């Protein structure tokens, strides 16, 4: 079976080639799709290879000496996770927690954001951090280009080509995760938190569902980290997988929420 491989050299060419997204497989860094191709788990008919599309960038207005002036940060969809590790927590810390140096050098923001969850375990490490940051995702697909909040984007992410992600730099942020030995190739559970300039606290979790989830009840109790930890359990329905059980996730989540909230208080 022959594969039609399209290699755009700009974002606009990528958008045109993607079209409505039907019957097209996107490869950015390759860390997700190439495994599947190597093991012949599926045979794509058309592939959009983004390696040369020029969509790897971080636009971060800088005042001086690395001090962000509060303007919106915009990250291109094919920016490798290694480049994100320099950003403030939670996104920087979350990116640094993914895999190892070499995989972080290849894996991309867009791939992490858009990959469909495999049935056997969670994926999309960055989703929780981007929920905490109240990020906007610009994407294209069947109904054309649009920007939407990440929570609206995630449920239909498999049908969209992410173009970039933008967010306001947080006043404070924190990230806490179940420690992941290398042999575990995904993060079983991680919590991200961010405080905006007006003091609003947002919390996101990765590993508690098919994609990142906002912890609304925990946010409402954010002034009391102990209570917020307990409240977080009402925001999610945990599942078992090969590494940890749903029961263990329920024991772990309140601890991670408390750790994130305490770290943000200490850092603010």
């Amino acid at each position, binding site marked *: 079976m022959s*594969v039609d*491989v399209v*290699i755009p050299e700009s974002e606009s060419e990528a958008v045109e080639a993607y079209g409505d997204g039907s019957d097209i497989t996107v*490869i950015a*860094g*390759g*860390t997700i799709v*190439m*495994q599947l*191709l*190597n*093991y012949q788990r599926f045979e794509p008919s058309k*592939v959009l*290879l983004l*390696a*040369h599309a020029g969509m790897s960038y971080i636009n971060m207005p800088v005042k001086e000496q690395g001090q962000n002036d509060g303007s919106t940060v915009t990250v291109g969809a094919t920016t490798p996770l290694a480049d994100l590790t320099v950003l403030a927590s939670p996104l920087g810390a979350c990116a640094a927690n993914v*895999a*190892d*140096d*070499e*995989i972080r*050098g*290849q894996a991309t923001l867009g791939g992490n954001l858009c990959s469909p969850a495999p049935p056997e375990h969670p994926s999309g490490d960055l989703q929780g951090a981007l929920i905490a940051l109240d990020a906007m995702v610009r994407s294209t697909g069947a109904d054309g280009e649009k920007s939407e909040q990440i929570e609206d984007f995630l449920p239909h992410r498999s049908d969209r080509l992410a173009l970039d992600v933008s967010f306001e730099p947080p006043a404070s942020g924190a990230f806490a995760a179940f420690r992941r030995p*290398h*042999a575990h*190739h995904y993060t079983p559970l991680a919590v991200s938190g961010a405080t905006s300039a007006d003091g609003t606290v947002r919390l996101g979790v990765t590993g508690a569902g098919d994609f990142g989830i906002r912890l609304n009840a925990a946010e409402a109790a954010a002034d009391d980290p102990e209570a917020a930890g307990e409240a977080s359990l009402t925001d999610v329905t945990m599942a078992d997988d090969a590494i940890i059980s749903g029961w263990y996730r329920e024991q772990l989540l309140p601890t991670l929420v408390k750790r994130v909230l305490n770290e943000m208080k200490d850092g603010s």
Partner: protein
Amino acid sequence: MKLEVNGVNREVRSEPLTPLLDVLREELDVTSPKAGCHAGGCGACTVMVDGKPRRSCLIPVAAVDGASITTVEGLGTPKDPSAVQQSFIHHYAAQCGFCTPGMVVAATAYIDGGGSDDKDEIAKAISGHVCRCTGYTKILDAIAAATKQTEFDITIIAPDPTTVTIGGSE
């Protein structure tokens, strides 16, 4: 497509989605990168792409068209090994040797990036590399020593390929 492999310009005729690993091994006969897991999890296929360590099993060759690829064959030769290769020999850091090419490439990238002899930092740098002989202690020792760019007094044990006889007898 074109690649510069260990300083030599090569034409590539494989399909665009062929993993770089397979292009190196099967088309270009550069066999030091090993096909361990073909899923990015073991590190044995690690090569330098434009000076940065990458998992060649996860890279469609069209994504690196025009790039410079360096494998351990490009870091040194049996008669003139690099500092990292000398250190691996001196510290007996290879057991079965399957993970060694990836380890040497990762160690070289770590040292080229200014890495220190701190064992915890070295362990992080090679955290994506699995040694199933579990010879990590000697690997860490070898990389730590190599950060000092020491010249080791080693006996080159690589055989001269023109004199090796496999399965025969004199």
